[in-house]
């Protein structure tokens, strides 16, 4: 067996029949550990690298397990017939996959060897050299840009955005297919001005590029309680459909291909 298949990584979930994260029917592998601490994060159990306990619906379960690339692929390949019909495949999500670069590279490589479409959902918060290791095996880079203002970015995510914005510029040139995804979070980035600023930056680095606006949702809120943490966005409501449409119009004005949802 080839060595890279034995690479061990830490994941917290594998989710099948995902139809919103890349083309076709996909299986998402959620890697554990993230450099950011976004206040609205819908997967708070993804943030720490450490294995932890979470209680949901009255039951406590262990979040996080160490697996080999081979084990993950066995699970992923079970849905091959559905991938083939839709051009689907594997999507790495997290957490931030770039926190486990060797594992992420090995997973993508194994997927490619099996003829699957590959995608990653990532904030690109890593040195560009690290990211470049993934690119040969990657079809779709779904990259988050959350804000253009470094201070506000830091306030809501724990880190400023300079490295990420710079990486976006590289990826626009180097990635096979780049999609920018913006989580639309009321009180953080949901004004026309803030979205315009992001759209302006995207159209500068990738004229006519794709941008997806993902409306904030509260599905993760119970998990915070289950982890014994405080959910700091309790007070905000998801943006209305009308508002989302308005933001979509905004990004389209920059000549970008926009859509609501993934």
């Amino acid at each position, binding site marked *: 067996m080839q060595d890279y298949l034995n690479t061990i990584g830490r994941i917290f979930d594998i*989710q*099948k029949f*995902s139809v*919103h994260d890349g083309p076709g029917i996909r299986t998402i592998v959620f890697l554990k550990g993230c450099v950011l601490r976004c206040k609205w994060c819908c997967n708070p159990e993804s943030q720490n690298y450490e294995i932890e306990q979470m209680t949901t619906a009255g039951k406590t379960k262990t979040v996080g397990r160490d697996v080999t690339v081979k084990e993950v692929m066995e699970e992923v390949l079970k849905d091959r*017939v559905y991938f083939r019909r*839709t051009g689907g495949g594997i999507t790495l999500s997290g957490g931030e996959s770039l926190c486990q670069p060797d594992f992420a590279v090995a997973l993508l490589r194994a997927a490619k060897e099996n003829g699957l479409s590959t995608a990653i959902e990532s904030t690109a918060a890593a040195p560009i050299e690290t990211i470049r290791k993934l690119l040969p095996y990657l079809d779709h880079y779904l990259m988050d840009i959350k804000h253009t203002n470094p201070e506000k970015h830091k306030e809501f995510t724990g880190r400023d955005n300079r490295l990420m914005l710079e990486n976006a510029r590289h990826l626009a040139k180097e990635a096979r297919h780049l999609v920018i995804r913006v989580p639309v979070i009321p009180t953080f980035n949901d004004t026309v001005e803030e979205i315009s600023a992001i759209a302006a930056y995207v159209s500068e680095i990738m004229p006519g590029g794709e941008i997806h606006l993902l409306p904030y949702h509260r599905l993760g809120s119970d998990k915070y309680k289950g982890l014994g943490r405080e959910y700091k966005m309790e007070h905000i409501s998801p943006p209305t459909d009308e508002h989302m449409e308005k933001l979509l119009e905004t990004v389209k004005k920059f000549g970008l291909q926009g859509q609501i949802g993934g």
Partner: protein
Amino acid sequence: MAEFYIEEIKKSPRISRLVEHLFEKMPQIEADRAVLLTESYKNSEGKPVITRRAEAFEHILKNIPITIRPEELIVGSATKQPRSCQVFPEFSYQWLEDEFDTVETRTADPFYISEETKQTLREVYKYWKGRTTSELALEYMSEGTKTAMAHNIFTPGNYFYNGVGHVTVNYAEVLEIGFEGIMAKAKTELEGLSDGDADYAEKNAFLNAVIKSLEAACLYAERYALLAVEMAKAETDSKRKLELALIANNCANVPRKGAKSFYEACQSFWFVQMLLQTESSGHSISPGRFDQYMYPYYKKDLDEGKITREFAQELMDCIWVKLNDLNKVRDAASAEGFAGYSLFQNLIAGGQNTEGLDATNDLSFMCINATAHVSLPQPSFSVRIWNGTPHEFILRAAELTRMGLGLPAYYNDEVIIPALVSRGLTLEDARDYNIIGCVEPQKSGKTEGWHDAAFFNMCRPLELVFGNGKDFGVQVGPKTGEIKDFDTFDKFYSAYKTQMRKMIEYMVNANNSIDVAHAKRCPLPFLSSMVEDCIKRGTSVQQGGAVYNFTGPQGFGIANMADALYAIKTLVYEQKKYTLNQFADALRNNYGEEMPPVIATGLTTQIVKELALKGRALSKEEISDVYIKITKNQTPEDKKRFYDKLREDIEALPKFGNDNLEVDLFARDVAYTYTKPLQEFKNPRGGIFQAGLYPVSANVPLGAQTGATPDGRLAGTPVADGVSPAAGRDVNGPTASCNSVARLDHFIASNGTLFNMKFHPSALKGQSGLESFAALVCGYFEQKGMHMQFNVVSRETLLDAQKYPEKYKTLVVRVAGYSALFTTLSRSLQDDIINRTEQGGF
């Protein structure tokens, strides 16, 4: 590449008005048919039964009231009131007489019945005592069979109480040569008969009965022609006057003659469809491949400029409405099993032709349109899918699925065709299959499939294993040994197989007894005239006249048994965490939870009987105390904790439906405990038994009669439906669920398998939602799954519909193999649908 007309064809405003008219009043029971039938029978005492059937059919069709409903283009109604029903005392009647006063108020499928009708029927019923198929069938059955039936191991209720139905006749032939053509064939056979032939008596009687029945059907149509002429005379609206004149013209020509236009073909089809349901009360009279046999008439008219697509669509829509005009009253228990006023008239589009080429045509798409336009449960609309199905056809079907009607159901040519060939059909016939009723494939016009012959509850034999063959103190099954003696899992499993085989044998005995009763008392000459090879052989379908003969009873509860046996294998024999005795105790006590009424009644009866045998007769009050005590089932706290821990450990085990190879292959083997023994049996028509794996909606009422099972399922709760995973236990998404279900052997279940899925509407959003959905269906089929059906309606909507039924009068949902109006279903069935695992797109 074939090109199709796939543009939307607009719905005529007439259609909504027809539907509205249909639902204005509650359906009622009418007595006309029963009265006429009985009159005729009284006058034909002593004649051959086939002759009596033909004379009765003729007497009914000459005299039954006829009506043309407002704005109809396709005419022919079995009842005066829309959506009402006639009754069929020749099959059984006692249940209806017993339920006269409750049939209007019961939860599942209520019918209005007037005091006058009750009185008329009471008179009629006097004649039928001792003369029904039901009574004769009971005479034929073995004692063991009757005991097993009384203990709800299986229920052959359908044909025990009613006509058989479940057939697709040769519509194409009627359209082509008309009844006069078929009568000519019968006459030719008659001419070929010699007085000295050994089989002269039966053949001669049969062929004459065929001719009499067909002539009666023609006369019936001609009565409509006259009525239309009269109505046209009185009509003031000039447009309607013209329509009535056309109707008169159609009814004067068809079904006597071959159809000369698409409109005539539609009318001819309809007379066949409704008259089959006047001759017998059998349901699942399935139109089958409507898009195929109607196409030549459509194409010709269209090419010659005689019809517009819009008018053709309107006519089809009218037929779709009419299919909802027919109705049938069942006994209260069966009504739960077939809930939703359903007649299961399955109509299928797409698929291959006899040469194996794709046969999808414009009418296939127009069938989808009609289903969308009418948005009612009938017809049970299905599509055939294979590797060569045009992608746009699957997508249009997916769009229909997205509407949330539970239609269409999807069927896989790649499994069904070889499965039928393995049962002896020619390749050409197998390629031309259609679906009967819920999910049962057959070759039209050549088959008496006796599909849907019984419900077999696979959980009950496991209960017998725990009781050493006893159920509520009665020896129902063989003695397979005390549970303490099962020191290996193989011994335990083998005891289950022994119980299964014996119960299957009893079910076969029940089916064959009923089969013979139908042949002796209710052969059907009209139906037989349209099924090959009856005329040539000079014998009815019921006596084995069809080319292909089967009996297909359906098992259900595979998922429960797979999970249950797996739990015992793992927890008792591998991990040795629990003993079989502890399991037995937990099951007896329903894991310490309250005991549901049916089980509590059974246990009470058992105790009372046992005490009576010991000479201790209980008073009414004492019996009631026993019952209450059993129901409350107060369990000491430590014991309850033990039961809870057991259930927790069971819950933690892997379950069928999650793409776990080991469990899935185990489930495959468990399904064989039903499908394999069954195929060894033969029926009296010279055919074999073949298994189906689907429950209609019986998994709910029959679950109510089933004790707790080792998969953690509580007593009285629904059993898993069809081949679907147990509700709520498939938690890894739809692809995992599909992969698991595809691991069962669908080929051996050649009477059909049923896989239910429920989607939240958001999962099918947009073009990509449709594409993903289509890929899911095709992916399941590629792995050799046979059938799939979907409910695409949100949980919130269904809960709201339970709360405010008046707002949701026409909310259609998929039940099991068919769709029904949600608000007409019993509460327990509604809950079962709500509790099915809902799949989303993540």
